[in-house]
């Protein structure tokens, strides 16, 4: 059983538009297609996992009308829910995809409500209870206001105490504290800033250096998926490079691609695959997700087709 954590969930609204026209006093656009779904990175992983039949529990903080909508829609997906309620309304995020420019969407996010200590205590109680019945915890996304920057460290440590694997997918200032707890796998999110652990990512060597800093804290695997070179997976004693053929991808919607990657990795680890093979599959799941309008690609044949476009090579000894 997998547990996903989304401390700052959102309801995702995706609009595909032909163009945005000036009409009278507004720049008006009528969407020719829309997709809405419960979101936030951990929840997206849950949706991916449920779509391939991997039983999972979604935890996190929800509130108000939007919170109820999220809970209901996860229930319809077959995901086990165990949320902590807050008094404020959960945020909604918007992505607008203009025809022909789907690879450069307009994304409007809001910060999300401020979280009180009382809520965090309640969440921690529920989290500790859930650790009794899961084998892997996925910690994804940013933290909402009011939650200490080091919160992922605490969550990873609690899981490790109980002997549970942890996978962390977060960006910016949340990477370092999480890495310090030494999770099983960490994938820093570097879409917004090509930097991690104060290390600018400019070429393969800088990526490997940044990865090593995280391994030093006891992290077992670091995945840096970045689009600068091939994607790089680093363990204590090995480095792998994964090269995907992204040229021929028809971009329909990038939202959820990174979460499909994490979902794909966990799905394959559950099936007993090695970490490098699982990562290769995860990349394929991410690429397949980009090619469908829905946030998550539910068709595994599309994933398998992408898998053939990805090569996995051992680069050598990471200690050198």
């Amino acid at each position, binding site marked *: 059983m997998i547990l996903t954590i989304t401390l700052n969930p959102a309801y995702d609204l995706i609009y595909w538009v032909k163009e945005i026209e000036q009409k009278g006093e507004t720049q008006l656009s009528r969407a020719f297609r829309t997709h809405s779904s419960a979101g936030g990175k951990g929840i997206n992983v849950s949706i991916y996992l449920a779509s391939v039949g991997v039983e999972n*529990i979604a935890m996190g903080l929800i*509130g108000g009308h939007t*919170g*109820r909508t999220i*809970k209901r829609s996860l*229930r319809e997906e*077959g*995901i*086990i*829910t*165990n*949320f902590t*309620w807050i*008094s404020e309304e959960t945020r909604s995020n918007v992505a607008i995809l203009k025809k022909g420019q789907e690879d450069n969407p307009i994304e409007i996010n809001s910060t999300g409500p401020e979280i009180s200590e009382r809520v965090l205590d*309640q969440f921690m*109680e529920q989290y*500790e*209870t*859930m650790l*009794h*019945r899961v084998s892997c915890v996925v910690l994804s996304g940013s933290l909402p206001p009011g939650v200490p920057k080091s919160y992922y460290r605490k969550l990873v440590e609690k899981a490790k105490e109980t002997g549970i694997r942890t996978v962390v997918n977060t960006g910016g200032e949340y990477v370092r504290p999480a890495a310090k707890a030494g999770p099983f796998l960490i994938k820093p999110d570097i879409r917004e800033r090509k930097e991690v652990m104060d290390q600018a990512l400019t070429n393969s060597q800088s990526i490997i250096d940044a990865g090593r800093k995280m391994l030093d804290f006891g992290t077992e695997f670091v995945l840096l998926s970045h689009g600068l070179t091939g994607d790089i997976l680093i363990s204590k004693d090995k480095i792998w490079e994964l090269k995907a053929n992204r040229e021929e991808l028809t971009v329909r919607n990038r939202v959820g691609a990174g979460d499909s990657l994490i979902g794909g990795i966990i799905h394959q680890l559950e099936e007993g695959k090695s970490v490098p093979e699982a990562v290769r599959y995860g990349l394929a799941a991410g690429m397949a997700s980009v090619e469908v309008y829905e946030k998550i690609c539910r068709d595994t044949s599309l994933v398998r087709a992408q898998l053939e476009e990805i090569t996995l090579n051992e680069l050598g000894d990471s200690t050198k």
Partner: protein
Amino acid sequence: MRVKDIMTRDLTAVRENQSLKALIFLLEKSELSGVPVIDKRGTVVGFISERDVIQAALPNYFEMLRTASYLPDINQLSRRLEEIKEDPVSEYMVEDVISVDEDEEDIHVADLIIRNELNRVPVVDEDGMLTGIVQRIDLLGALL
């Protein structure tokens, strides 16, 4: 069909050491009339509903309502509730909780729900850990 085909896989519950105040917050936000009570490991140890809260605040409230002779003041109830709101739910929960397991036949749960006039029945695994809930509405949804 079995319980697992009709149950709601929602683990909303209250811990035995939580206060009535926390319970009331949860019931209000989740719009549930009652929730299972669990221990630290997630084992179901009771069930508590709005009705139990009223009973806790004013033990003879329902009695009073049933005897037409005297109708109690609702403010009285609010005041008593104020006094006990920090008490743990374990003091007021129903301990002898009716639960089912995922592999039971749906007809058996239907029987339980109707016989005992229940709205919700917790579903537990072989260790007594909460895995979901069967709501009267799930049962009817399966039929209709």
